[in-house]
């Protein structure tokens, strides 16, 4: 694999990690304030549709972006109303928002454009165009220049504005959370709202502020997906990113810089899927990797409960069995036979990682202590 391919994969990692990162930080603000938000997915979907539709109609991507943010903030406000003011169940409210967005976007798109629940392709002006840094060269000349120039032109330059915005959001979030009065209160309200209340600060106000910030960031993410990553709205185009971002948030232990790392990792898996549809590996290395996985699982469950041993140990046995099968089938042709890894497996890598993260393999993550609990003032 030469250097250019690596750069291209990383470039694509960055583009694919951007929406995840924005959504992850959105969830971070909300959950740090004690409001769990399972409705991130619905918000980015709604924002994607509204921004694409408005950008197409007005011809201005900026108006589209604002409209997308507006739609997402509106859903946030509904979530806030249900879970803060009316003290309802945050999970139910979030799930409702997901359903609402999934259905409404397609129905409205159909009624508006009549193109089977999608928006027409966005023309120039209705999209965020890549920003080329001074001196950067176009892709087709890339093979002829040195690695530093490749790094500069391909990886650093040539992204849409929102990619850079997302990256800047990380230090900004860190600063707001850890260096400002607002951040101190926001973190406190997710840990012990009673402490905030008795200090004379409005718990409701803090939580609404957090939920609105969440809405704005989700709005930017949705607009990015429809107007920068792609050039129209299509049905269910958020593709589970809201949920993957939640997994990344847990992986990141609710911290901004960790969130950057987690989202880049997920983005990397998506990039691999995009770039390599056919991965060929020699039989010995494939079977080796599988065996190592099986041993890893066995080591992990060694000191666990019986149920863990049965479930994960069984999984490990299955993996080991596949590894043996591979060796057996490749035996006659020699162990260096190239074996094709199924496309579906590559495609499912980010989701497998999500499951692994949520299953708690990455160590114990402690969520904000008052997360998910509506604040009821005690006497």
């Amino acid at each position, binding site marked *: 694999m030469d250097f250019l391919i690596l750069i291209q994969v990383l470039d694509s990692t960055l583009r694919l990690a951007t929406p995840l990162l924005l959504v992850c930080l959105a969830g971070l603000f909300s959950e740090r304030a004690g409001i769990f938000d399972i409705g991130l997915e619905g918000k980015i979907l709604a924002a994607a549709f509204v921004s694409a539709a408005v950008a197409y109609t007005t011809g201005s991507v900026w108006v589209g972006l604002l409209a997308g943010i507006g739609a997402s903030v509106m859903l946030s406000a509904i979530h806030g109303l249900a879970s803060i003011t009316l003290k309802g169940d945050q999970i139910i409210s979030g799930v409702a928002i997901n359903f609402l967005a999934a259905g409404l976007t397609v129905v409205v798109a159909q009624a508006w454009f009549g193109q089977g629940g999608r928006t027409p392709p966005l023309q120039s002006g209705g999209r965020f165009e890549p920003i080329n840094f001074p001196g950067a060269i176009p892709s087709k000349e890339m093979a002829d220049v040195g690695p530093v120039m490749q790094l500069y032109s391909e990886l650093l330059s040539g992204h849409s504005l929102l990619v850079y915005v997302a990256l800047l959001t990380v230090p900004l979030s860190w600063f707001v959370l*850890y*260096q*400002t*009065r*607002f*951040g*101190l*209160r926001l*973190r*406190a309200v997710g*840990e*012990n709202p*009673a*402490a*905030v*209340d*008795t*200090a*004379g*600060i409005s718990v409701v106000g803090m939580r609404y502020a957090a939920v609105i910030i969440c809405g704005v960031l989700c709005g930017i993410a949705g607009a990015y997906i429809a107007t920068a990553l792609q050039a129209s709205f299509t049905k269910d185009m958020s593709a589970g990113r809201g949920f993957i971002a939640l997994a990344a948030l847990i992986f990141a232990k609710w911290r901004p810089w960790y969130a950057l790392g987690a989202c880049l990792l997920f983005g990397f898996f998506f990039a691999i899927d995009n770039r390599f549809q056919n991965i060929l590996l020699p039989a010995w290395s494939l079977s080796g990797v599988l065996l190592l996985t099986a041993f890893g699982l066995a080591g992990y469950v060694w000191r666990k409960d019986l149920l863990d041993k049965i479930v994960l140990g069984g999984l490990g046995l299955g993996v080991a069995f596949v590894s043996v099968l591979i060796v057996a089938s490749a035996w006659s042709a020699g162990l260096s036979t190239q074996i094709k890894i199924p496309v579906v497996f590559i495609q499912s890598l980010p989701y497998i990682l999500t499951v692994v993260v949520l299953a708690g393999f990455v160590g114990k993550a402690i969520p904000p*202590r008052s997360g998910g609990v509506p604040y009821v*003032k005690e*006497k």
Partner: protein
Amino acid sequence: MTNNPAIELKGISKAFGPVQANRDISISVMPGTIHGIIGENGAGKSTLMSILYGFYKADAGEIFTDGQKILIPDSQAAISAGIGMVFQHFKLVENFTVLENIVLGAESGEFLAPSLRKARAELAELAAEYELNVDPDAVIEEIGVGMQQRVEILKALYRKANILILDEPTGVLTPAEAGQLFRILGRLRKEGKTIILITHKLREIMDITDTVSVMRRGEMTATVKTSETSPENLAELMVGRKVLLSVDKTPAQPKHQVLEVSKLTVVDEAGVRRLKEVSLNVRAGEILGIAGVAGNGQSELLEVLGGYRSATGSIRVNGSEIDLTGSSSDGQSRRARGIAHVPEDRQREGLIMDFTAWENAIFGYHRDPNHQLNRFLMNNAAIREETAAKMARFDVRPPNPNLTAKNFSGGNQQKIVLAREIERNPDLLLVGQPTRGVDIGAIEFIHKQIVALRDQGKAILLISVELDEILSLSDRVAVMFDGQIMGERDPLKTNEKELGLLMAGIISEAKE
């Protein structure tokens, strides 16, 4: 300084629906004094304080500070009127530092760094002025409750509070820590601060207050100078009748060994050893009291004995071994072996709050053939009747078996649990915090029942954080600290100071 009271309430009333929580309450507290408010649970003390701190709006009445009429619509207004509150359950953010907790809500600007710098400097001054030393960079969850309480006091002082209200401040403290707290309060009084101390402990009122008000059923029944009253007098004012403050009992006549615990060790989910080779024994006809500050392994000990936590070591009841980890390690099997259990937290472990009294009255014993009509149906009518009789015997009010558990007061809930466990005629009774949140009248009754059971020749293991209770009920006292038994004393030959040292883990000085 003027001669105005630091704080004065006139005719405060507050009703919640049909319940009159406060009726025409008037208090006036002079600056530089400590005023006690004493009353049973539900007497309306907390409601009154919530009104003062802006949580509730009074239906009628006026509040004055230093002669000026003020309105307290929210906590912010209370703070700016110079009122500081130290709640029974601390309002601290556990994973923040001391400094961050003090600054929270009283920041000096948008950005944190200058606020923290300013607070650090002021904290040093406050620490010197009132002898309130706390490490500003310590994380709250890593410091003890005594320290956490200091942080609460510092929080109030940092907000320039002149009137400090403390709600049941000694509930979670060791006697030594309580002593320290009272020294701090004395110091604050000397500096001209006004302190309102809410408590149900008569001794604290007598020890430190200058004046005391007694509340009963939402009304202020009396306000007297502390020096002109007595504990007996206050208790009578609280309950409305004469109360026996000490427990009347004859010396124990212990017989054969009933419970033998040896080398019991518990490791929790996080890998922390909660019990470290605890050994103890209880004989028939005696009460073994276990004293200690909450969280030193007493709960775990009860949970293991009650059959809902596994452990290593051995427990023998009446000479035969009890299964600690296997399939018959559960509450059901323990009860079959003659172990009855009044758990520490009656609302979580003792009762199902949404179930009726008669349903609650048979939990744990619901498989008893007496409760069954046939193989499939329970004999509900008989259970109801039996419960009504039990409720009469244990003076549960109202004596209505069809009422849900949450509709009874704390004392009456406890009586329901006690009736269930005692009336099964167990060989061994485990009792955790029998009078937590129970009013004086009911405490008297519950104590009598426990002593009566002892006199019938039953073995009783009593766990309580109330040292008074341990000392007055127990025939032997063991002290727990950090998952270990620090020592055993004869309640008649020991004193609070010695037990307090043991409770703080200091053995050497506690040796006679």
